[in-house]
């Protein structure tokens, strides 16, 4: 379980996150929604330990991210926002490099790489240098690279942003398979229909605070609206105006 306990983060005078608490349970897909600048990426970065919280703590499977960031990171698979590839390595070499850094044996690595390349339909690009990859090809590679070590918890920052329909479907299939394997996924997105279709629960952040949490229908009911999109807009604007 990922437990976010009373986390706050300030950058100078800007309060990016304000006493936020939430959790991601075992084997569930949780959507993280928020307007641009709401604090989604900051929260993600604090979960994977590259940004330290000003107050509060994040605990992953009993390990404090603040106290043992490396141990906590070994439990995570992360697709950060706008992640880059090594352009002089092939797609497969990019994936293998991260797998080896995660400590996979060569047998495990080969097996996991083959599986991901197959699921994401990367066979035609696996041996090609990453230089000149299209957005979709790049996204598939960074996604495979993020989860090659079969992490228990997966964090994805806008994984389907700018992808074509076929790639988006491949990503969705992959996420469902991760869930079926008992892994937890927290992903941020601006696409409401995607969140509705994929997620067991949603977290809505506005102005650095958690303004709604629960199943999609619970959030819609809480906001007294007809759809998730309307609920999201109402909750975000209410905080924005306040």
């Amino acid at each position: 379980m990922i437990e976010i306990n009373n986390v706050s983060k300030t950058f100078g005078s800007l309060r990016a996150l304000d006493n936020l608490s939430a959790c991601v349970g075992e084997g569930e897909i949780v959507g993280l929604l928020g307007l641009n600048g709401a604090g989604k990426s900051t929260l993600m970065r604090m979960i994977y330990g590259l940004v330290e919280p000003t107050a509060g703590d994040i605990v992953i499977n009993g390990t404090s991210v603040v106290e043992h960031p490396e141990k906590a990171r070994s439990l995570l698979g992360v697709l950060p926002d706008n992640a880059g590839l090594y352009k002089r390595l092939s797609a497969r070499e990019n994936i293998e490099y991260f797998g080896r850094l995660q400590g996979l044996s060569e047998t495990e690595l080969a097996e996991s790489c083959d599986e991901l390349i197959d699921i994401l339909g990367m066979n035609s690009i696996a041996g090609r240098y990453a230089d000149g990859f299209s957005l979709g090809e790049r996204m598939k590679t960074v996604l495979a690279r993020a989860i090659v070590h079969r992490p228990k918890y997966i964090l994805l920052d806008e994984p389907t942003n700018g992808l074509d329909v076929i790639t988006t479907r491949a990503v969705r299939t992959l996420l469902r398979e991760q869930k079926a394997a008992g892994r937890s996924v927290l992903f941020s997105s601006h696409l409401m229909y995607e969140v509705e279709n994929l997620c067991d629960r949603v977290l809505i952040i506005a102005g650095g605070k958690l303004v709604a949490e629960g199943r999609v229908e619970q959030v819609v009911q809480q906001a007294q609206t007809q759809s998730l999109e309307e609920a999201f807009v109402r909750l975000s604007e209410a905080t924005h105006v306040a």
Partner: protein
Amino acid sequence: MWRKQFLQVWLKEIKDAVRDKRAMKLAFLPPVYMVAFFALGIGLAIHFQNTEERNIEITAYGNNPALIAWLRENKITVNPVDADPYPKVEKGEVDYALILDSPSKSANPRQPRSATLVYNASNQNVHGPVGQVRQLLYQYNGTQAALNVLARGLSPKLINPLSIREANVATDQQMGGLILSGVPLLLLMCAMMGSMGFAADMTAGERERRSLEALLINPVSAPTLIAGKWAAALLLTLAVVLLCLLLLAVALYFLPFNQIGLRVAVGPGALFGVFMALMPVACIAGSLQLMLGILSRSFKDAQTYMGFLIILPMVPFFIMMTNPGLYQGWHLWVPMLGQQTVLKGLLLGEAPPFWAYLAFWLSAIPVTALALWGAARQMRRAKIIYG
């Protein structure tokens, strides 16, 4: 675990570097053209020296047949002219000239005559030939004085109360070292610059292509990452230094130093000594490059910041050039300055003191460790990752 991760980082960086054609050219081409220009420069210097030695031509105005005959006997080509050459030397039309007085026929033949050597001392090219002509004039003067004294029944020793002799104890090889004074600088620059492009790509490149964040999400400590990158930069630098040394050895072997009476013998032992002396420099260079690279937002920024590293070997070079006799034991403890001294010695065939290499390592290790520690600390800062 960290050993395996270190090895993986090292292997990946080497693979990435070898495939980076731009950085490979940036690293391995400078030694080729630096040695080529060095060989060309030395070759031309030898050629000109040979030519100048054989043909010293001097413009002479005035009448002193005995002196002109003396100069001609000593293989100086004398070109008599009818007009005073002084203005021509002033204008630079003639490099140097000799103005002799022309006494009337009734004058005493034993009366002292004058000979004026006219030249522009700011012209480096005239120093050699003018020096030789001057030497011959003094010799002629001494010979004539001795004859005059002898004609009066006195011993020529009377006019030479001091017998001056010079003894140059330098061996041919040591004299050859003079011509190689720029080589330590060339080698130190190779060691400082060898992995610049690679180190920039490993650090600033990671920031620019936004792969640093993803890399740091792996459970690898920043010191392990930096150590792996540094080891890759070190290997590449040593490869560049080795190439530079091999090319230099070939150039020194084929250059005709014997034609100018010099002996340059840089054998495998000396080359090995040079390589060992440059290893600590390569260690320092790699760590400083990574430190500066991680502070740079882009590859271009990194190249700009790293540019100052080229200046570092120049400082001891100019110190040694302007104070050639200045040598203190503590020089060996100062990175670059110590190497400059030892490399110069090795090229002259002198073995450095046994503790010199120990001093190099003992001074290089703290500098390297400090720079790597700084780079590792910087690497995990949010400002660096997201800045």
